[in-house]
């Protein structure tokens, strides 16, 4: 409900036939019995509850490992996992290639709790008994496969996010952008290539969801991580090879990717991806311009030139963004 909700206007609109009888009836009902939704509040509390509980129990176990004993802990975690999955399978709706609505809000979080405890379970077995030996590929592949299975079978985008992150781990990188930037993991060529492959794989996955009509609503998640991973990898490749002439190939690849994604976003009608591609493309262009400016043929005027470039280019990007927005609006 808005602050100055004007229900009187509907009387007039109803006589003008702009509002149908059925809608008018519903509006009158809403007027006499307005409903407030606490959907997001409950979800937030649920999310916080799960975060605190898993964090708290995890720390508790870690601190008391000597007195409790490993078997007890493993049994407890296994029991929790089994319990959550029993509930989830009982209430689950059958698999479908399109979107499946969740049975209720609580269901999603029980599933999340079950998945988390399953991951802890596998991690614990590996840490304590090293059941996979030193075969870390296998140790990370099993949770990953399980996560992808859960995400698709139960139609849970949150778990799909975790599965993608695990895919990144499996491919030898930490996938969440936060870690990437904070820990500055870009110190070797092979990691950059792995990350680039990861990003391109995700973009391909995004394309496949549309092409083969499998869970079309998962496309956003794949493309979101795909754009960030591949763009950041290409730019990192540029800075890593800064002193060699090969660096320009990385930069132009980044530019090319942005341009391609920009035009692709029109087909998908996703303004978010248009925005991202413009900003990554702008960053790459600015890198190029400053590289040229710093080649010291310009001399003294470089500061003024740089300032001029920043001002004018920012104006240009604003006009590009707003005109793109208009195209999306009218399309």
């Amino acid at each position, binding site marked *: *409900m*808005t*602050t*100055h909700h004007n229900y009187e206007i509907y009387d007039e609109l109803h006589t003008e036939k*702009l*509002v149908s009888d059925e*809608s008018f009836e*519903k*509006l009158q009902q*809403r007027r006499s*019995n*307005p*409903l*407030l*939704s*606490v*959907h997001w*509040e*409950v979800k*937030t*509390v*649920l*999310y*916080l*509850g*799960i*975060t605190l*509980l*898993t*964090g*708290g*129990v*995890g*720390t508790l176990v870690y601190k008391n490992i000597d007195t409790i004993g490993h078997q007890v802990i493993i049994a407890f975690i296994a029991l929790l996992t089994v319990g959550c999955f029993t509930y989830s399978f009982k209430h689950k709706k059958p698999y479908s290639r399109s979107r499946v609505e969740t049975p209720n809000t*609580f269901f999603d979080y029980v599933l999340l709790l079950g998945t988390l405890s399953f*991951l802890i379970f*596998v991690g614990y077995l590996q840490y304590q008994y090293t059941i996979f030996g030193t075969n870390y590929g296998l140790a990370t592949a099993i949770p990953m496969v399980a996560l992808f299975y859960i995400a698709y079978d139960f139609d849970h*985008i*949150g778990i*799909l*996010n*975790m599965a*993608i992150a695990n895919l990144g781990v499996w491919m030898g990188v930490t996938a*969440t*952008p*936060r870690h990437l930037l904070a820990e500055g993991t870009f110190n070797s060529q092979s990691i950059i290539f792995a990350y680039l492959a990861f990003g391109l794989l995700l973009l391909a996955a995004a394309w496949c969801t549309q092409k083969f009509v499998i869970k079309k609503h998962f496309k*956003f*998640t794949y493309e*979101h991580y795909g754009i*960030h991973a591949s763009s950041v990898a290409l730019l990192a490749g540029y800075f890593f090879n800064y002193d060699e002439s090969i660096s320009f190939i990385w930069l132009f690849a980044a530019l090319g990717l942005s341009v391609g994604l920009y035009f692709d976003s029109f087909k998908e009608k996703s303004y*978010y991806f248009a*925005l*991202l591609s413009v*900003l990554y493309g702008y960053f790459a262009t600015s890198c190029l311009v400053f590289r040229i400016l710093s080649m010291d043929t310009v001399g003294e005027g470089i500061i*003024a030139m740089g*300032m001029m470039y*920043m*001002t004018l280019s*920012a104006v240009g990007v*604003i006009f590009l963004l707003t005109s793109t927005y208009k195209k999306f609006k009218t399309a």
Partner: protein
Amino acid sequence: MIIHNKEWLNNLKLQEQFEDDHDAGCLTDNELKNLKAKYFSRLTSYGILMRVGLFVLTLIIVAFSTGMISLVLAESHLIENFMWPLILGIGNYFILEKWVKDNYHYGSGVDNALIITTAGFLIGGFGWMMDTIDNSQSHFISISLFTLAVSVYLSLRFADLLMSALSCLSLLAFIFFAWQYLGGFGMATLPFVLMLVSGGIYYFSKRLIKHPKAYYYDHCLHVLQILSLLTLYLSGNYYVVNELSNELHNTPGAPLPFGFIFWIITILLPLGYIAWGIKTRNMIMLRVGLLLVAGAVYTFRTYYHVLPIEVALSIGGAVMLLISYAVIKYLKTPKQGFTTAPLKRSSVLDHLNIESIIIGETFSNTGAAPTNPGSRFGGGSAGGGGSSAGY
């Protein structure tokens, strides 16, 4: 007073209402489209990510263009004077007026950025001026009063949310600095005066929002309500009062006299907000109350370590799960006008899957202990899109 075209503003408000009724399932898609066409508005606003992007770009433009002008004028000693930021502020203001009038921007990111830079230049210049006139003492009182005047004017002129927030905070800052001049009496009564003023702001904005003259300012008044509820709590919170009083009296570590009063406020006020919010169906109060429960718990734990942290976390988490489970069960069919069903709205939050991204971010370390549960709305890599241009 307000700069925008009144008819378009009215239509914008009506469009908001139509969308709200559409989200509630009372209007069909086609009806919404027709109604929006009938009550059209040329005022331009964008989604949150676009706004952030344009905001950052505008700040870049202002920073580098003023830098360039200053560089050109550096020889003339004109820029070494407090007049320079004031001139820049006035210039900024005229560009802002022209931009908004020509492009009909209303919360597009560009106007928001120009409003902030205008206020920033003017307030910075004023502070510099006061310091030039008399640099023997600090000028918190006059600066906060000047900030209040500037931000109130800009809020009224552009119905800008951030300026409304700034007006609220600068009024409180003014009271804070002025009341200290009363000496010992002022010091002792400071928290109560601030609480009284916050309560007054809340009451004022609550009353005013229904007034026809405040028709275009309902979002601004919502900001005032949220902020005043928060400051009302913070001025009575034990931790804040204790730290501030020790800071002002130069007595670090001393316990607070009449501390029990503040403990009562610290613990009971959030619960009061929640209860009152539910009773009066006031979502703002309910949400602020929920948020402040965390504040109360944190304050309590700062002084009393009754339980080890991990036990407290586990119990707290379990209690939260139980409460939300109970609420979902209880509201399975809507009661007292409350429901847990989602609104149909495909809002930005749903659209960008913020929730799932956060789950991915916090749990991706294969379920290790989460370090910062408070970042529910802070993290999220979606914001990275805006920051990549702000290098």
